[in-house]
């Protein structure tokens, strides 16, 4: 993973919705992400009555999310949301390094 910023035109965009899902963003289809500023384009926020419910909702919401035309870290969030360590709240600041090491190949 390079994590290099990926500015450019968003050609297709679909945000998830439904109960307990909030998306804070200023992006829209055909919006051009300028290269001059930080790379945050949206915050996907989910709510659930319990942590387990919130995680199930997060997985569902990430499944509905479409961003085309630019690169994004949505795939990383799908991986995090599916991981056993995240489900079990085994978290510390090295979480992402362990996730990367556990990847096949």
């Amino acid at each position, binding site marked *: 993973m390079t994590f290099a910023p990926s500015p450019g035109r968003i050609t297709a965009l679909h945000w998830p919705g439904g109960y307990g899902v909030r998306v804070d963003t*200023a992006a829209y289809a055909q919006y051009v992400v300028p290269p001059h500023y930080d*790379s945050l384009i949206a915050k996907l*926020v989910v709510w659930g009555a319990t942590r387990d419910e919130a995680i199930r909702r997060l997985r569902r919401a990430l499944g509905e999310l479409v961003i085309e035309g630019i690169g994004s870290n949505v795939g990383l969030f799908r991986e995090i949301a599916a991981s056993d360590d995240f489900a079990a709240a085994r978290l510390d600041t090295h979480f992402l390094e362990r996730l990367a090491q556990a990847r096949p190949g």
Partner: protein
Amino acid sequence: MTAGSRSFSKVLIANRGEIALRILRACRELGLRTVAVYSQADAEALHVRFADQAVCIGPPPARDSYLNIPAIISAAEITGADAVHPGYGFLAENAEFAALCERCGLVFIGPSAPLMALMGDKVRAREAMVRAGVPVLPGSGVLATEDELRRAAGDIGYPLIIKACAGGGGRGMKIVRDEGALVTAWSMARTEAQAGFGNPDVYVERFISAPRHIEIQVMGDRHGQVVHLGERECSIQRRHQKLVEEAPSAVLDAAAREQLGGLAVRACTAVGYDNAGTLEFLRDESGQCYFMEMNTRLQVEHTVTELVSGVDMVQAQLAVAAGERLAWRQEQLQLRGHAIECRINAEDP
């Protein structure tokens, strides 16, 4: 509004992107008019379209636009704005900007400039927390000489971390694992701190290698009342940038939350803190939490706190900046359910 309030009716939003929209929404629901500022790169941005007025303040580079203090103050003057919300990033923790806004008759939506300056100086902030009884990691004051450095490092032990007094958010830090690397890391850290923050002062702290990042959200008014809105866990980070945040933390029970929240409220009350703020803590494997730094602004991840507390934090910021009292006492704030935020970035996967 109560007597002595500093009411305002038109808010200039000194930011861009999603947070500019977030602030715009809060203003609109409160009946406040809005002024967007934008760079030439953002002419097609939504905050420009949705605000009541918009002013182009400069060319694309942030230093010429969103960090261009005279342009932003001028934009407030020509539009008749009487308050400024800085959002996060850019000028949000610039105490000189906050002070200048007040001198120009603009209500700054945030804590007072002296409090921002206090918390922006990491050594002074640490000292203020120690006075209020908040646990901090074993650490030093400003280290100006190699002798002071060696003595402090000997007391604290390894690994340790060298931090810039004017730094924060992960910038200007050096981890030192043994004595052999100490002096080189210290002089590099001083050089970087000078280049990055215009101030070479550094200090050292014990380094926790695999902490959880837990932070307490506080909100204070101008009448001496401070409450906390529980914690967020932001342990999933990459190069000190948070990627996933949640509220509450799975590892704090009600008693631990009350204890840490109570400490945060006591510390903020002691310094007379008002508006939104966040105390960041590192939690080690034994469960002990240590104060790391305080952010004197709205955080990116305020959304998870909103979803579990039911509090619109930006509206609360605007209310207390206008001199209103906090709308709730601590015991009236009930946290419900669980919220998780993912920061979606435009980046190569």
